[in-house]
């Protein structure tokens, strides 16, 4: 188990490193940063001055190594726009995004898991078809449109919930639903498929042959095996949600890192963009690592080096 965890951890570090390289180079190759910083109407000499001031005239490898070594000491650089440390700006906003992501994931799992189980118990019944409809809608509706519909119905017409900003838990309800609903279909379909397969397996017949009651057969013997792939998927979905929160945070004016990324791209504030991409990627890597560990906990066959 320790060897397994160590191997996964090494892999995770490698992935994080690769992501940092790719994101740094892509940003620098996507256009002339000095030009973007100086503004499109500035003169050639101004652009050169900006280039020198921010060290953008150095070879890109040197720039990367400089940035990477500072990141390792916890220094994410200075924001061009705010003139403040990037780490401080992100630390202020990351909790909003994380809380939103966790709420959205909880909403998605709480909706998708029971729907998937019920659909698997009665395949092709009206319950299964209803669950399928819900999931297809979730996949088909663009999240910004769905978010606007939620605002119109629950915020403007029914006036149950605030439509934008943050502060109270009520502010998180609509964004969590909008963000979480998008992840519901995949989790539900995978739960359903997993449960159908597991329920037809020999060890479920064994469990029934022992005379176990239906809840024990269903939850102890079937669900535990059926959720193994769902755990990995949920981790990936959580990563997607943090990325997707850029849209949702913008629609609901939530000041998380998604909203910050959106503003910073418009301002060519690339130290912030770079740091956010790195943080989202790292969160993603950590989640995948945790999902692997959780999977090994659920499935003893995976606990080998």
């Amino acid at each position, binding site marked *: 188990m320790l060897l397994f965890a160590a191997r996964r951890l090494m892999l995770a570090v490698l992935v994080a490193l690769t992501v940092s390289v790719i994101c740094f180079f892509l940003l620098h190759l996507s256009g002339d940063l000095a030009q973007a910083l100086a503004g499109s109407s500035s003169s050639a000499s101004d652009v050169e001055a900006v280039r020198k001031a921010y060290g953008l005239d150095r070879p890109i490898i040197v720039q990367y190594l400089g940035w990477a070594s500072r990141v390792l000491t916890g220094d994410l650089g200075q924001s061009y726009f705010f003139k403040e440390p990037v780490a401080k700006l992100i630390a202020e906003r990351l909790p909003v995004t994380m809380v939103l992501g966790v709420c959205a994931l909880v909403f998605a799992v709480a909706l998708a898991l029971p729907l998937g189980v019920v659909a698997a118990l009665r395949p092709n019944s009206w319950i299964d078809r209803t669950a399928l409809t819900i999931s297809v809608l979730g996949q088909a509706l663009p999240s910004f449109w769905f978010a606007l519909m939620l605002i119109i119905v629950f915020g403007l017409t029914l006036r149950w919930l605030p439509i934008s900003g943050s502060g109270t838990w009520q502010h998180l309800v609509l964004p969590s639903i909008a963000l979480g609903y998008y992840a519901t279909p995949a989790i539900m379909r995978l739960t359903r498929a997993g449960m159908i397969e597991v329920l037809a397996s020999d060890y479920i017949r064994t469990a029934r*042959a022992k005379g176990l009651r239906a809840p024990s057969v269903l939850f102890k013997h079937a669900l535990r095996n059926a959720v193994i792939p769902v755990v990995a998927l949920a981790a990936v979905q959580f990563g997607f949600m943090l990325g997707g929160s850029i849209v949702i945070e913008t629609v609901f004016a939530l000041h998380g890192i998604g909203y910050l990324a959106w503003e910073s791209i418009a301002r060519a504030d690339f130290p912030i963009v770079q740091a956010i991409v790195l943080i989202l990627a790292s969160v993603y890597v950590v989640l995948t690592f945790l999902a692997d560990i959780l999977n090994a906990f659920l499935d003893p066959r995976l606990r080998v080096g």
Partner: protein
Amino acid sequence: MTAVLEVEGLRVDIAMAAGALHAVRGVDLALAPGETLGLVGETGCGKSLSALALMDLLPRRVRRSARRMVLDGEDLAAASPRRMEDLRGDRMAMIFQEPMTSLNPAYTIGNQLAEALMRHRAVGAAAARDRAVELLEKVGITAAGERLRQYPHQLSGGLRQRVMIAMALMCGPRLLICDEPTTALDVTIQAQILLLLKALQREFGMAMIFITHDLGVVARIADRIAVMYAGEVVELASAAELFAAPGHPYTRGLLRCLPVPGRDRGEPLGVIPGMVPNLAQEIAGCAFANRCDRAADACRAAPPPWAPGAHRARCILAPRAVA
């Protein structure tokens, strides 16, 4: 001696789009305590479905019905699904063909063994663990205490089948149904498991139904043999009599398909020509008539008689007094 199990007119119908498929068409079985009944027949003859019907483990679209189905004085035909759950694993237990997939990969052997006892008896975890160790030792597993912490994937097929047997015996059932328990195992392990089952049966005094398509296996373990064909029992006799004087043409055909060492060298093995009849339709006469080389018009007109007696064959040509 009162019978452990009495079954009369067991039928199993599978709901199909085009109508019901009559997979088991009126099977009668009776078992005395400590007796082993071999249930033999080819794939699809209804032997496994009959066993699953007794256990009430049939899939949802499959229905069982019987004129009479009594286990140890308890009417199984009238038992509710909850009552059947109480009986399963306690008074009747079953082991299956696939030891590799019959244990839950997510739980330890100890957990799965203890669960079988704790479901039916008011015992604590420690007592259940002791019982599990005792039974693992009985089924010939060494270092039983350590095995309890192992997961199924850490065990070989033969060991897993021993665990399945131990699990079935946790509550000391009156009836043990073995559905091809040795088919997936290699030949040496097969012999060990058969000997083990025989020994355990004597020790526990339980009745056993042993399902197989392997006549060689059934000859070694069964006291009596029921040969099934197309959803019904076509011949029922003691093991010795069945092999010495098979009364039904289908049984004779099956025996001709067996290789015999030292005889028939170079000659092809026997085959039974033709196909099993379609069980979705009603069969008027003898189900085997279309494949029987001695079939007469009378065979196709009416079902052959099934006279009482120790050795019975569902065939008009069978001598009345084989027993």
